């Protein structure tokens, strides 16, 4: 099978803050082959290409949408085995969010099979149709229906074939558990028997996903149930092979020379006569310097030797202390530059603020620090060249994009590159790019052997793109009845997701302005929704306080009936908000927040405990979440719990601190992420709406946590903290 032409029917609009998807590749390799490659026995001076040592953009890479929906023939989607097992091919990846199990359920549902009769081949560009990358919570709303439609069409073909063989009308047949049975005679055929029919392959080949009917949610047999993770056994035995576990015969281990500071460029590198470099393949190609050696330890020692000899130019770099001034100063109002300013105004817009007396006006600036995804498996790739054909195993949410990056970096036709994404050790929006794949491929090309490259934790913290920092200015006013009269909200740099005001306000404006980012930034779970919800929901609480209103009542009074109001009401009831808000104590506070993103709805109530001299502690998070018809309740619960706990990190402690171009927080000992002891009591309410289409759930459950905590802290202490993280030093 080969990759084939894509038909774009639903172009996916990229949010502004997916900066990494618009960025150029990190490397431009030298097409003139002046690049230096050597297996060293002796020292050597390198002068070649020094003039072009700085990072150059990788020109000409084609842009692609995040999601493609195309006309496919069913034999590219399914293989029906003689053992009655159906193999499903998809470019989607599994990074812990549960897509492998969920897509298995989707196929099983419409093929009327138990989940264990489905096998998924995911994210192999040589085998799988391109269903787009795995991002934006799109698997549930876009790819589950896509697989279901294809499976339903395949089921109809199987039914027709069985009817023909049994010489009955298809409407006479029952299809379930891989049996096609004639209701009147009891005669039946198994899926395995049908699979051996010569006609089946050409029938599937000629058919596209048709209009076969899909089961309604209230009829679901496999969807809607807590099918256990299909590969759980491999995960608990250590048999699962993550990208960093891939091994090839004769494989070497790579390492790349990193700059000592952000923005630094290599001025000179004289290869020293160091025994650590003996027998090591050294590659220098423009800005890229790396090694390949017999094991990771030797590769690291070789890089240390090169690092000691390298001379760098270190230009000035803004520090995290001056970050928000820098963002405001460099904000772009240029409508032609990307990302463009996005301004939405209604009523009299910002002008309405001026008519309100100062005591009913709020002016509050909120900040959100850069944070890292820190997936437990750092970026990793194994690259192998065979006769000019490149195969790379790597952890990425975007196999197709990585494929394009490799093809561009090595000037290879598309059919000479194959990208395979084994189930990957975490991602959270952080693995959309292919830099590690390109690096591994460059080393493998030089070494003439497969090369495994895994970034260190320090590299992952320092050089991976991070969640954008942001400055958010809120200007708002109340009318004399204590209702929101005007709303003005400006986000500098962090992004536009979740910027819309869900509350009723007669006049207002929201705007997003891009700025110069000192760090490489891009997508993160829920994108800028966390930042925008933090600022908005904090400001709403500040307005409620100004109006002397209960924050719940204030919100409800400004919300129309609907799904957001429903989750807010549900969480307040579960948490017994009204009672607990009234019963406030000096050492305890409660707070709430709500929001919507990507078609799902979330509300959270939080209790914090504040001891004099001690760090505030989040004791309870109660959260209600609604994402349409629930497809796998157990997995949904885990996604919601995981998002809440991950959100505690960004809310309370996580931040990237940097000065003079050096990151001071490049390890887990200096960058505190949530641990088991940090987990509060979790009370989760999952609202099931079988009457509504299912949407994704991996992102939105993170967005209400930080503002709810900020509001609870303000409730407990009377002091409003307007920066994320809220308690960076722990107190």
């Amino acid at each position, binding site marked *: 099978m080969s990759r084939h032409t894509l038909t774009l029917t639903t172009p996916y609009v990229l949010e502004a803050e997916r900066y990494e998807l618009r960025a150029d590749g990190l490397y431009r390799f030298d097409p003139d082959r002046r690049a230096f490659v050597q297996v060293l026995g002796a020292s050597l001076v390198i002068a070649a290409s020094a003039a072009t040592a700085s990072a150059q953009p990788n020109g000409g890479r084609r842009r692609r949408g995040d999601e493609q929906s195309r006309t496919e023939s069913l034999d590219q989607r399914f293989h029906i085995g003689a053992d009655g097992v159906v193999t499903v091919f998809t470019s989607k990846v599994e990074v812990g969010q549960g897509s492998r199990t969920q897509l298995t359920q989707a196929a099983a549902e419409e093929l009327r099979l138990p989940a264990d009769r489905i096998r998924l081949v995911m994210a192999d560009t040589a085998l799988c149709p391109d269903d787009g990358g795995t991002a934006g919570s799109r698997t549930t709303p876009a790819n589950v229906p896509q697989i279901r439609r294809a499976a339903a069409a395949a089921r109809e073909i199987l039914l027709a074939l069985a009817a023909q063989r049994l010489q009955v009308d298809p409407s006479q047949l029952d299809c379930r558990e891989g049996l096609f049975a004639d209701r009147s005679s009891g005669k039946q055929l198994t899926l395995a028997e049908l699979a051996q029919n010569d006609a089946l392959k050409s029938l599937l080949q000629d058919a596209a996903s048709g209009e076969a009917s899909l089961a309604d949610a209230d009829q679901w047999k496999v969807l809607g149930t807590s099918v256990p993770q299909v590969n759980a056994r491999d995960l608990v035995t250590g048999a699962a092979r993550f990208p960093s576990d891939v091994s090839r015969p004769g494989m070497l281990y790579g390492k790349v020379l990193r700059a000592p500071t952000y923005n630094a460029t290599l001025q000179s590198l004289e290869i020293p006569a160091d025994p650590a470099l003996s027998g090591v393949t050294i590659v220098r190609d423009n800005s890229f310097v790396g090694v390949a050696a017999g094991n990771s330890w030797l590769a690291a020692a070789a890089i240390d030797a090169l690092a000691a000899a390298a001379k760098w130019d270190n230009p000035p770099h803004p520090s995290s202390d001056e970050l928000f001034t820098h963002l405001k100063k460099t904000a772009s109002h240029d409508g032609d530059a990307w990302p463009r300013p996005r301004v939405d105004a209604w009523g009299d817009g910002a002008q309405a603020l001026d008519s309100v007396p100062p005591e009913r006006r709020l002016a509050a600036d909120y900040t959100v620090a850069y944070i890292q995804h820190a997936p*437990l498996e750092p970026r990793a790739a194994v690259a192998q060249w065979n006769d000019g054909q490149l195969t790379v195993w790597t952890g990425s949410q975007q196999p197709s994009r990585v494929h394009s990056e490799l093809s561009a970096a090595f000037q290879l036709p598309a059919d000479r590159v194959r990208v395979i994404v084994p189930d990957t050790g975490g991602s959270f929006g952080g693995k959309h790019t292919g830099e590690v794949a390109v690096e591994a491929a460059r080393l493998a090309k030089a070494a003439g052997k497969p090369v495994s490259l895994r970034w260190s934790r320090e590299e992952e913290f320092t050089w991976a793109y991070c969640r954008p920092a942001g400055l958010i200015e809120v200007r708002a006013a109340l009318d004399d009845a204590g209702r929101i009269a005007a709303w003005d909200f400006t986000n500098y740099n962090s992004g536009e997701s979740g910027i819309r005001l869900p509350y009723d306000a007669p006049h207002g404006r929201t705007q997003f302005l891009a700025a110069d980012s000192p760090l490489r930034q891009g997508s993160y779970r829920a994108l800028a929704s966390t930042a925008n919800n933090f600022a908005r929901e904090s400001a709403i609480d500040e307005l409620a306080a100004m109006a002397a209103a209960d924050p719940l009542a204030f919100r409800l009074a400004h919300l129309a009936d609907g799904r957001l109001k429903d989750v807010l009401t549900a969480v307040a009831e579960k948490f017994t908000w009204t009672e607990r808000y009234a019963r406030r104590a000096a050492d305890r506070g409660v707070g709430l927040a709500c929001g919507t993103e990507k078609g799902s709805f979330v509300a959270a109530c939080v209790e914090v405990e504040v001891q004099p001299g001690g760090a505030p502690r989040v004791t309870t998070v109660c959260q209600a979440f609604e994402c349409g018809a629930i497809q796998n309740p157990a997995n949904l619960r885990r996604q919601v719990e995981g998002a809440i706990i991950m959100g505690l990190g960004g809310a309370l402690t996580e931040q990237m601190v940097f000065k003079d171009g050096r990151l001071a927080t490049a390890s887990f000992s200096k960058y505190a992420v949530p641990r088991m002891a940090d987990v509060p009591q979790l009370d989760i309410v999952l609202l099931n709406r079988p009457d509504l289409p299912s949407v994704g759930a991996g992102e939105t459950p993170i967005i209400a946590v930080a503002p709810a905590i900020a509001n609870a802290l303000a409730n407990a202490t009377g002091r409003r903290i307007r920066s994320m993280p809220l308690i960076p030093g722990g107190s």
Partner: protein
Amino acid sequence: MTQQLKLKVNGRDVAVDAHGERPLLDVLREDLGLTGAKYGCGEGQCGACTVLLDGAAVRSCVTTVADAVGMSIETIEGLGEGDALHPLQQAFVDHGAAQCGYCVPGQIMSAVALLRENARPSRAEIIAAMNGNLCRCCNYPSILAAIEHAASPK
């Protein structure tokens, strides 16, 4: 200097030619093909590389292979008997205690060490023993539930 080191891994004697200063984790993964233990941080902060040395949970990324000579090394691959899962592995499956699963071998090995030492730990004791094992998917509630189940009287 590379030397021949005699190791005992999952009950078997194996000899490897390796520099004694290399991390045990690298030797397990790169020389012995035992990739169950994972790299997560290289500084003993995340627990992904956890293996047992003479029954105690250690971070193999900050343990040199020379230090493991003469000790019994247990990895996730050595747990369970034939096709039968170890009770903790089964509990992790039953409680959905994996999201991406990358941390899971380390989580299980830390929990094995805990339960061998203390068959009926309290919740606080479990949390104290497991606090060095990061799960970035933050699936801690399911991991805790799995360990509590494995530690409960049957």
